[in-house]
């Protein structure tokens, strides 16, 4: 009977008693709302009007019923803040039935900014100390929701008193409520702490658990204060059988160990015991996380360090293999934490993680992908990428496929291509990636192609010819869909073929593919690169033809003929470049006809090597002596020169670019131009003498300036390893690249697969060779091979069997500056730490500090809306 008694029944019975006085019970309201789905708002507005009438009656049960209905409407999203005073009225009823309704309403709709809260202090104090434990409990539950700084300050002592109540039911709640008090009034923490600590040894396990909960929360903010409690917690951990409590204690230890490594050493054993014994997944998961955190914080190896990691990884494997998606997800999540410090242990489970890529749940697949990037090594990179490529073919959903694509590029390019041993293979992978339908990552692929071609000199011949195939098949990239950006790869292809055209097998054919009239369908920047590189290839063709004038003439004439259509490009830059190229060619043609052409004049346009510039280069440029960045380059406009002041202020921009005319140019050219600023300026061309002079002085200053980025003659990292020669020999024996006309998509076995197989064979051969070498023990080659056999002694290290390909890592830096730059990295870490923003920072109080931190840091929600808080909190009366 009692169990099924609801407020409605109460009201219904009361209704019987009061007859007509009640309009609507909550039941009626809920049913009414369900029956008025079409005009819910209207129905509710009427109901609110009725409720307002009910609240005016001088009958507490009617008011309570009205407030109960309002609580329901509040949940549906209606504003009931106007009824705050009525709610307090119901809260203050001396009947438990109504008080409960009042507190519920308050806990749902009051927040720390509610201004009537200041009226409630005494009422709540009375309720907290009520002789009925349920009244007191109702008050505490409500207070935990709407407590603010004022209430926390005024009621802290009352709550402290409740912690000594004879009833565990009350003590437990008081302890938990205390945490809310601390959050809203951090000053209360220090004086209350001793009593909170006592509660850890309360005879009632529920109160103990509550104290553990609160201290666990507190310790997340400032673990240092709670280190001294470690023995108590240790005892609790080894004696408690309540998993809810155990999880909290273990979490707490996770926060403490970074401060006290000895604690971590002591923890490993009980934790691993728990991992072995527990059947509760939540506890197992918490233990694993804490063990991992402990092992990370104790960097110095523990004796059974590896065994613990192995145990965790094994257990995680079981989680990942479980059919429960939740366990799978969390298992992968925890694996990624282990990966950061013990990549080898995780790498052993490569197979499992690859399996997860087939999971139905995308979030699990993405987690597995995250793990993969940390698992690659020289040894397994090609295998992993190959599986990912196969996977990409099968998978559905362009978002996930794009995710796969960017992951492939990420794992291949990480740490400057550290794990790539065969760049031919990588280039062919990139080329195959361009076939991914509708990818958004065209730019990414293009950037990679450019980067590899620029950084890895030895790959250029191969890259050029692969790019030539792309250019020859440019038409496949003309797809109606605008969602894909894959055409961007043509940008890279055209530039690589142009810049490194001497490696092209059939440059003339490539030139013809570049002159494809369809290219005006591509975006402007791609066209621009095309037009620019036409000239490079022609220059090369003429150069390599030994000044064969007939051929040159033919070539130039053909190009001029085809290029004229590009003049109609819709993109301004592309059009301009086409026009410039065309006119240069026309001039060339004229000169050839007059037999006055010298190809060196043309090649001078593209002289010099483009080297990668280090990301930090700009920052590393030292400020030369005598350069004051804050000083004016030109004198600031002086007040006295009226004329120039007016022009400068009016011309803003032009003044900026041209500088002050009198100083740079002969003043007479501007003498007439003072008032009409819209009149076009006549730029007076300097005479050839002047130009020559300027050029000379510039050259001189360039030579004097050590920071000028000129192409360096000296080659970096010239030392090529023997192995890399082996490697290039291997290339020659490889199946030759498919003919130019072949569309790569039609190949039976993809090029990357061929290269993959070849690579595996080479690898095996080298391994055998090395083995026989070290078996023989004869070190004919002196230093190098003896070093090799040393390494071979350590079986795990097989890195030396992989070819070393020279990669220009980093990039050019200003002379005299080294790449050290650790300070930058440190900055990065620092800023990342700062970003991890802790909303409960207010509780970061050091108990040992003499003065209690006077600076008041507002609690979480206030932090989110600081301005609001200031407005809404009434002044303390």
């Amino acid at each position: 009977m009692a169990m099924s008694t609801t407020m409605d029944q109460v009201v219904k019975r009361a209704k019987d008693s009061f007859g007509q006085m009640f309009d609507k019970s909550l039941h009626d309201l809920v049913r009414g709302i369900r029956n008025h789905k079409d005009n819910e708002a209207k129905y509710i507005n009427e109901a609110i009007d009725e409720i307002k009438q009910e609240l005016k009656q001088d009958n507490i049960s009617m008011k309570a019923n009205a407030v109960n209905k309002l609580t329901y409407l509040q949940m549906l999203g209606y504003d009931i803040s106007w009824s705050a005073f009525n709610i307090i009225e119901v809260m203050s009823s001396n009947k438990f039935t109504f008080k409960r309704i009042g507190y519920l309403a308050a806990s749902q709709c009051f927040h720390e900014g509610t201004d009537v809260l200041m009226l409630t202090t005494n009422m709540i104090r009375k309720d907290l100390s009520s002789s009925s434990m349920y009244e007191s409990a109702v008050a505490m539950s409500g207070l935990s929701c709407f407590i603010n700084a004022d209430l926390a300050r005024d009621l802290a002592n009352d709550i402290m008193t409740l912690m000594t109540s004879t009833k565990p039911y009350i003590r437990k709640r008081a302890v938990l409520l205390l945490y809310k008090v601390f959050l809203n009034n951090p000053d209360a923490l220090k004086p209350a702490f001793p009593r909170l600590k006592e509660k850890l040894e309360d005879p009632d396990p529920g109160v103990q658990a509550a104290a553990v909960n609160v201290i666990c929360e507190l310790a997340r903010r400032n673990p240092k204060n709670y280190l001294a409690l470690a023995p108590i917690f240790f005892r609790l951990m080894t004696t408690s059988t309540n998993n809810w409590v155990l999880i909290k204690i273990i979490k707490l230890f996770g926060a403490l160990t970074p401060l006290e490594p000895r604690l971590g050493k002591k923890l490993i054993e009980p934790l691993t015991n728990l991992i072995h014994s527990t059947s509760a997944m939540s506890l197992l998961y918490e233990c694993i996380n804490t063990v991992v955190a402990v092992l990370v914080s104790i960097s110095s190896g523990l004796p059974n360090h590896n065994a613990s990691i192995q145990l965790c990884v094994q257990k995680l494997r079981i989680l990942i293999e479980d059919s429960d998606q939740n366990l799978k997800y969390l298992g992968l999540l925890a694996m990624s934490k282990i990966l950061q410090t013990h990549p080898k242990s995780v790498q052993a489970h490569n197979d499992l993680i690859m399996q997860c890529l087939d999971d139905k749940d995308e979030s699990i697949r993405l987690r597995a992908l995250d793990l993969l990037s940390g698992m690659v090594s020289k040894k397994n990179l090609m295998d992993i990428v190959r599986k990912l490529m196969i996977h990409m073919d099968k998978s559905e959903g362009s978002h996930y496929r794009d995710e796969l694509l960017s992951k492939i590029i990420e794992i291949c390019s990480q740490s400057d291509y550290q794990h790539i041993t065969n760049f031919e293979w990588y280039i062919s992978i990139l080329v195959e990636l361009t076939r991914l339908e509708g990818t958004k990552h065209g730019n990414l692929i293009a950037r990679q192609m450019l980067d590899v071609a620029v950084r890895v000199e030895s790959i250029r011949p191969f890259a050029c010819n692969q790019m030539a195939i792309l250019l020859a098949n440019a038409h496949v990239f003309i797809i109606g869909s605008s969602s894909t950006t894959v055409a961007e790869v043509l940008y890279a292809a055209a530039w690589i073929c142009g810049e490194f055209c001497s490696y092209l097998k059939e440059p003339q054919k490539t030139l013809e593919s570049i002159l494809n009239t369809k290219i005006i369908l591509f975006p402007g920047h791609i066209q621009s690169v095309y037009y620019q590189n036409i000239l490079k290839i022609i220059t090369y063709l003429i150069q390599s033809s030994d000044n064969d004038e007939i051929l040159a003439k033919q070539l130039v004439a053909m190009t001029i003929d085809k290029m004229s259509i590009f003049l109609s490009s819709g993109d301004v830059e592309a059009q301009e470049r086409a026009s410039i190229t065309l006119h240069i060619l026309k001039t060339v043609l004229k000169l050839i006809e007059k037999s006055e052409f010298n190809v060196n004049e043309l090649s001078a346009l593209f002289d010099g090597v483009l080297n990668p510039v280090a990301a930090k280069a700009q920052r590393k440029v030292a400020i030369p002596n005598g350069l004051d960045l804050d000083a004016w380059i030109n004198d600031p406009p002086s007040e006295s020169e009226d004329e120039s002041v007016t022009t400068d202020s009016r011309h803003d921009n032009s003044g900026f670019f041209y500088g002050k005319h009198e100083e740079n140019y002969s003043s007479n050219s501007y003498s007439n131009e003072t008032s009409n600023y819209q009149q076009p300026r006549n730029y007076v061309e300097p005479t050839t003498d002047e130009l020559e002079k300027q050029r000379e002085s510039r050259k001189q200053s360039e030579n004097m300036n050590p920071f000028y980025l000129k192409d360096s003659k000296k080659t970096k990292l010239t030392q090529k390893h023997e192995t890399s020669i082996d490697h290039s020999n291997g290339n020659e024996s490889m199946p030759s690249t498919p003919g130019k006309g072949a569309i790569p998509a039609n190949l039976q076995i993809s090029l990357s697969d061929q290269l993959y197989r070849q690579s595996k064979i080479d690898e095996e051969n080298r391994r055998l060779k090395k083995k026989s070498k070290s078996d023989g023990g004869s070190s004919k080659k002196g230093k190098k091979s003896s070093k090799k056999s040393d390494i071979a002694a350590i079986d795990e290290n097989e890195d030396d069997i992989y070819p070393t390909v020279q990669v220009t890592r980093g990039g050019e830096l200003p002379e005299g500056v080294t790449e050290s730059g650790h300070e930058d990295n440190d900055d990065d870490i620092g800023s990342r730490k700062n970003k991890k923003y802790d909303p409960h920072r207010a509780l970061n109080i050091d108990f040992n500090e003499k003065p209690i931190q006077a600076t008041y840091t507002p609690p979480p929600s206030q932090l989110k809306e600081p301005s609001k808080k200031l407005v809404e909190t009434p002044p303390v009366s």
Partner: protein
Amino acid sequence: RQGKLRLQKWYTSQTDKSKKKITREIIAAVLSRKPKMSSFLEWKDLKVVYKRYASLYFCCAIEQDDNELLTLETIHRYVELLDKYFGSVCELDIIFNFEKAYFIFDEFILGGEVQETSKKSVLKAVNDQDVIQEEELEEKRSVLEDLGLA
């Protein structure tokens, strides 16, 4: 399933406006999940743990270092409590007796922390309070009877 809110409980002080915004965003995020997916999703700097029981979704937003599985157990425990109290609970029980659902919740959790892990104790406390309510009602009725109103 239609994204209607049946119960809500906040442990950080929020204005009505931000409550509505957060609720809307989380409901949308949870409803967009496919059935075979895990029960966890990342939402801003929090983790959302949800579980579906018949037509009802129970969602909790927890902090980064909170334990997801423990949260799932908490949700499950609450559903068990509802089930025991109402006797094979259904959505309508919660809609029509929403205040009871809150009372049970307040016995189970305070300030976002589980305060009572024993189902029996939670239900006993709730029932005791129902008895008090019942007694008060009887009292009232007898007063009314005395006054000759009933």
